[in-house]
């Protein structure tokens, strides 16, 4: 049960070692830098040291209580991330698969709109626009 923010990459295998012992189902989600515009080379992620870690831990604990998780882990990167690099991961472990799936889905919906991170697209000319929050991400929270 842990949340952390880091600049460097993470190793899914190492993170999953000893994760969720005793659980029957483990779900992981990995978000990867993707170019939707055809002009992006990288993302730059800014965060709020202190608050961001606290919010991640808070949502993890909330998901654990709501879905009865045996274990959970959230890792989110900041700084400059090139196309194809993993941005973040969420892992959930539960007795049954439905709970593990729902908890991961729930965490992703909350992190999208409530985790204090701000993304900017970096193009060939340098820093570009800040990524705007999507209404659809805000709407997704109403599912829970």
């Amino acid at each position, binding site marked *: 049960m842990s949340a952390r923010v880091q600049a460097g990459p993470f190793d899914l295998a190492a993170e999953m070692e000893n994760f969720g012992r005793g659980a029957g189902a483990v779900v992981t989600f990995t*978000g990867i830098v993707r170019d939707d515009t055809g002009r992006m080379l990288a993302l730059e992620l*800014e965060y*709020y040291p*202190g*608050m961001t870690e*606290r919010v991640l831990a808070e949502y993890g604990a909330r998901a654990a209580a709501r879905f009865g998780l045996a274990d959970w882990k959230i890792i*989110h990167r900041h700084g400059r991330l090139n196309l194809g690099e993993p*941005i*973040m991961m969420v892992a959930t472990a539960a007795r049954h698969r439905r709970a593990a799936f729902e908890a991961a889905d729930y965490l*992703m919906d909350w*992190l*999208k*709109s*409530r*985790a*204090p*991170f*701000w*993304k*900017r697209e970096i193009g060939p000319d340098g820093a570009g626009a*800040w*990524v*705007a*929050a999507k209404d659809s991400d*805000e709407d997704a929270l109403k599912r829970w």
Partner: protein
Amino acid sequence: MMLDVLYFAWLRERIGQPRERIETRAATLRDLVAELADRDEWHASAFADMGAVRCAIDQELADLDAPLDDAREVAFFPPMTGG
């Protein structure tokens, strides 16, 4: 009271610095925003559209009517885009 005010993303860029330490008597976040916006054109442009700004008091999300009480740190930023 003395207050640390933090800015993130385009608010930081418009204001030209990531944080400043200020002396204020503002009772609520709304009062504080009015006070800051009055400082100069950069602050004014950062706070021109408060519908696009989110706030935190001591690292907890708060709305504009929230009282500052004995807050030590206030932050302004755009809607979050994590994940």
